[in-house]
């Protein structure tokens, strides 16, 4: 890498990252990734910067606290949390945005953290399962999962809990199984705990509406 590039990289590090720049750098067009959200985010930022491929220092705001770490630009948010920050509640299962075991909430939106690059979520509010308990008290969704035995091996459970929380945050008036099935359709379980999950989400909806949790 030339000195010129190094300078640009340093400058970029100070001023934030550009997805478009990164995408150019690794010869992938943003069209190939296809998501409208990606386009939107890319356009909102300054174009034309190059990062990596070696590790770069980044800061992630996770569960309300800034975490500094050094990762290669190709590292996903999921792997950054699991391998670098020991936040292992989110699980790596399919590793390509199908099963939801890695679900986190970023700026209020439910995301599959295995398909988000860590460098791209700097400056955003990232919430993981570790951050939803308050003052040591489990979140009502977690409690409802236990009450309704909505888990067996439990490997999908943190993802389900986060997806359910994100869903209920946006849809506090959920009252039917059909709504739950739509809202939680992006998560998969192998042990077959859906009967409990359906009941748990409805119970949590009631509990959260009752104001037992902010």
């Amino acid at each position, binding site marked *: 890498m030339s000195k010129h590039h190094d300078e640009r990289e340093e400058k970029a590090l100070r001023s934030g990252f550009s997805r478009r720049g990164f995408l150019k750098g690794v010869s992938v067009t943003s069209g190939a990734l296809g998501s409208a959200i990606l386009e939107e985010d890319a356009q909102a930022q300054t174009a034309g910067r190059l990062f990596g491929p070696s590790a770069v220092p980044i800061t992630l705001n996770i569960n309300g606290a800034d975490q500094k770490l050094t990762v*290669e630009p*190709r*590292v996903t948010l999921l*792997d950054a949390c*699991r*391998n670098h920050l*020991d936040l*292992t*509640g*989110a*699980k*790596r*299962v*399919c*590793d*390509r945005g*199908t*099963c939801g*075991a890695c679900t986190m909430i970023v700026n209020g939106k439910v995301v599959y953290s295995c398909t988000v690059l860590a460098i791209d979520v700097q400056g955003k509010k990232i919430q*993981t*399962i*570790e951050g939803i*308990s308050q003052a040591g008290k*489990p*979140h009502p*969704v*977690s*409690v409802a*999962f*236990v*009450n309704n*035995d*909505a*888990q*067996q*091996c*439990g*490997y*999908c*459970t*943190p993802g389900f*809990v986060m997806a359910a929380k994100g869903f209920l945050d946006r849809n506090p008036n959920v009252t039917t199984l059909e709504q*739950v*099935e*739509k809202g*939680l*359709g992006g*998560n*998969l*379980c*192998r*042990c*077959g*705990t*859906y*009967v*409990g*999950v*359906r009941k748990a989400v409805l119970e949590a909806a009631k509990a959260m509406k009752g104001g037992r949790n902010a």
Partner: protein
Amino acid sequence: MPNYSWPPMESRKQIGKRYRRVDGIEKATGRAKYNSDLNKPGMLFAAMLTSPYAHAKVRSIDTSQAEKMPGVTAVRVVAPAGTELQWVSQEIAFVSATSEEVARDAVRAIKVDYEVLPHVVREEDLSKVADRAKPAGEQVTGDPDKAFREAEVISEGMYGIPVLTHCCLEPHGQVVEWKGDQINYWPSTQNVTNIGPDLAKNLGVPATQVKVHMDHIGGGFGSKFPADRWGVECANLSKASGGRPVKLFLDRATELNIAGNRPSAFAKIRLAAKKDGTIIGWESSSWATGGMSGGGMPPIPYVFVNIPNRRMNHTAVMTNCGPLRAWRAPNHPQASFLTCSAIEDLAAKLGLDPMEVFAKNMQWVAEARRDSYLAQLKKAAEMSEWSKRWHRRGDSGPGPIKRGMGIGICTWGGLGHASNCRVTIHPDGSVIVELGSQDLGTGTRTVIAQVVAETLGLPLESIKVNLGDNSYPPSNPSGGSTTVGGVSSSSRIAAVNALEKLFEKVAPALGAQPDQLEAVDGKIQVKGNPSKNLLWGAACKKLGVQSISEMGTNDPRNPRGLNTQGVAGIQVADVSVDTETGVVTMNRMVAVQDCGLVINPRLAESQVYGACIMSICGALMEERIMDAKTGRVLNPDMEFYKLAGIGDIGEILVDLHITPENDKRGVIGLGEPPTVGGIAAIANAVANAIGVRVPTVPLTPNRVLAALQERRA
């Protein structure tokens, strides 16, 4: 001799209660640490190079580039030049490095020259498997020729059920730290006690050097017993890297390619019968594959084992596919699907209600289970509103949406395995229970706590249960639905033994003989004179400084009436089929399952719900799809290797058939039997709905439409 029997059903205070699972909150808050979650100081990451070909020989392998890469600590080749690779993703080399990314880059830098060899990966058409078919010989019972000559009706069909993979959400793998003569081993396993010796044997070290620990496992379903190549090489990489811990968990594609699968089963079946539906003869010609070892004949005719006059042929097909492993009730779902499909087709041909035909043929079922099945058929009919909803095959009214009902059946053993348990009562009154067992998510920890709490007359919260470490008393692997019987019995015996010792210590203080004492509601009291008592804490203080630590052993040869084997189960499916799109929708699934004494009905029901959902996956979605040309798995991911989602399951009704008679039999394993009959029930329901048999599951839209088209043609 102490009395180990279960307390009578009516006087139980803990056993039979619907407690929430004791590790529930830990799991639902993300605090539970699975071994794939471990981050040890100085930990390295490993990655695997695996075969891109279904059949090839390694001509040469060059790891020099990989070895030179910064961050790489060790490279190990397990398939050197000359090795014949027999399936895609077979292990070739392992690399450890300071990060997962570097380990993967290093794998990509290994150069292999392959000589590609011819492969066979598909078995559904036996005429296309060349020399890979291995006939297993003919089995004949009675006089099938005569039975078919004299039959009033002969029904025949062809049925197929494909290879499935376990698809555990936590992939296979481990962290291993091999430092000096100590190996710390953190695997994802169903086999905490025996996986250490397995690793040790493969490494050529004494088993005493391997320390195993695992708190939680993210699914196993029969696929996680051995240490595996990846476990052995992970240890070797650790040693080669100066004893730093090394983590290696399979990526999803590798997991689906080589970490286990359930063999397929295909069969042409003919039934000879009387007009009233009584079966008098059976002929089957079946074939199966589970990789290069072929695939055995499922136990057919299933459940109806005494059907007279049988002729059976089976052919094992060797395919260049990842090897089979035990899959939740090995070979039973296949056998149930083949047998129940044939019986449903017979009933349809005769225009009879399959409930009646199944009941009629109960004369061919093992006598010990016959009454259970008959009672369960009745119960399942009631719960599924069978008499209201069933109609003759295809007679499902106008409109494109057709509704149908079908039956499936199961049986299983479930005898408790060999298990040792240690119960320790400390002078401060605290109680700890230790077993070298594991909780697969079935609720093992919770039921052990209930058993010990019941025995000691204590609340559930006061019992600490420790599993998942090979320094605890040995307990057998969790397979074959043997765990609940084994661990509940060994814990019961250990707790009774510990309590006896406590009685000896406190008897003088209560002015009674030890055998006059009982432990009830947190007290040790004199039987018949409860006012003479000591609170639990005060009683334990009498121990002075010496804890009580007693063992209990479940010996499968003499389970003392605490556990037993042999269960029956009936499942009924109620489906709707859109004949324009071919989409099958679950309306309802009913499972009536006996399982003896039920320690925790809530957790037992969860097992059955889960089993029904797994059956829905197998009946409607799941299938490992092999590409004949490239020899590769076309769907080694979770997008196209389809599992049911929360919106796919319909209503599920479970009846655990809890009766005083069943309870008296003792504890019986439950994990597997309810997974058996569901695929058969759903496939039969679809045939009932659309008027034609869809021969091969999963019943995907294209298969349903093809079957409909064939009927119209």
